[in-house]
């Protein structure tokens, strides 16, 4: 398991992170939603928060601190969910309607 505490892991994690944000950018642009720098930053911040939550639960389980894993997991997951909804709405700003009847247009 040493890989997960090594520098190589963080290198790989960095690549995966950049790929995830790039993928999100392409996916959003395919749906006619511009994805500039501020959206990249916002999405990155939210992903860091999600990452923190997963790592917190994992660390607590690893430490055998089950109460911390449960209570902390619930608290941080709720925070992630609420902020996730807000972030998602912000990321969709500027979406262009391309076909009549598209109800999702937001400018």
């Amino acid at each position, binding site marked *: 398991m040493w890989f997960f505490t090594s520098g190589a892991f963080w290198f790989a994690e960095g690549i995966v992170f950049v790929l995830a944000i790039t993928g999100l950018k392409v996916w959003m642009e395919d749906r006619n939603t511009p994805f500039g720098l501020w959206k990249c930053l916002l999405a990155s911040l939210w992903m860091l928060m999600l990452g923190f939550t997963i790592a917190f639960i994992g660390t*607590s389980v690893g430490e055998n601190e089950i109460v911390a894993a449960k209570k902390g997991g619930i608290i941080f997951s709720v925070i992630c969910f609420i902020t996730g909804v807000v972030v998602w709405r912000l990321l969709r700003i500027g979406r262009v309607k391309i076909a009549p009847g598209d109800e999702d247009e937001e400018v």
Partner: protein
Amino acid sequence: MDRRQFLKAIGGGSAVAGSTGLWFFGTEAGRSPDSYTGMKNREGGYQTFDRKKWAVSNPTYDKVGPTSRADGRTDVIFARMGYLRRYDKEKGLDSFPPHVRDYYTKHPEDLELDITVRREIHQKRAEDVKKYRNEFILSKAWSSAMGAVGPRGVNGPPEEWDFPRGGASTPYKMKDPRQTSRLIKKVSHQCGSTLVGIAELNPDWVYKYPMNGGRGFKANEPIEVPEHWKYAIVVGVPMSWDPMYANPPYGTSNDAYSLSRIVAYRLTAFIKSLGYAARPHTPGASYDLMVPPILVDAGIGEQGRHSIVITPELGCNFRPSIVTTNIPMEADKPIDIGVQDFCKTCKICAEQCPSGAISKGEKETIRGYERYALHSSKCSNFWSSKLGNMGCRLCVAVCPYTRKANWLHKAALNVTMHDPTGLSDHALAGMQELLYPGQEPQKYYMPSMGGENASYRPVPWWLKTEDFIDLPDPEEPTTRSSE
């Protein structure tokens, strides 16, 4: 600058930065304590906190009036206990020599706790030990293994014992005190110490009278602080983490006591070989001085509400020893990592302590210095009110600073250290209580005193007796050494 020029500049800069980075990577990979397989500790690999950054000119305790030295015969519970068997109800306080009588006259509550309460507890305990001993077979065996090795103790007065060949040797001339400090620290790590620091010895910390008349001192004769006790080298090693969290019953101090002692005696031998005086002060109860304030002076950490010193690396999960010496060195400075402020907010140790020995109130003036009071008679009575290994150590386990060095706890420590507002202290102390709760304090007691033999965290798998041993009938008479 056009685009092509810009890209060329960026490319050139990156090549230089990359090459420089690789140079640092290479040198670090070659000399990092991590690369000394199995010997990281011996290379000082766990004392990584940058103490210079947090150094302060004055220690984090306050001197508030005329000071006096502690009386090793009565202020130290272990020494005081030595007098208890002389107690005769008929004679009352007259059973004791004058200094003990004086102590109990000033502290009548301690007399009640040390004698009457202790007797009642011991009677109850005998039955519980019989009933529940099976639960602790492995942890007791482990504790006795950890305490099996130790150096011979100091057995002569400082003017003789401390000097090489009884004082006949001429010391080598050391070139530079700063270099000597570096050397001593390196050697301390090589001797097995996780932490090391150096202080100029404040004579206030030396006992006025020796603890038990051993170590070459005559009982009831005051200690004249020897001139050669100029410096105090502090060393410390951690207790095994998982059993430590399973305190009070399953942990032991023996593992760290034993190694801490070995380190101190090794270091003493090293210094004496250079012709200088040295004297180890080690656990258990082989001291001529008070240890915690010296740790503070040496910049190892700060004294917490529970009276134990909290370090940035190990929290309070460590056991120290001290070597007093006259080898010329440069002393370290005390550090301030915010423990005093944090302890004002956090009272977890005081709330969890089953005996109520730790103060929930403000600091008090004790012998001219301000600190939180610890009621050692209450603490010691709890040691007899529980089963399993000797001692308790629950206050070590529950302290938020005593956390393993993973990213989460390191981040929390950094937040408290860097936040000047103190707001994070409230948040983190609150989170500690919410996320890392302890038991109801009463549950830590043995069953005959209304408890459940509870531990802060579950016993580690390798100390679960029932998983390895066919449990004997508790009623069956036994002569096994682990009991």
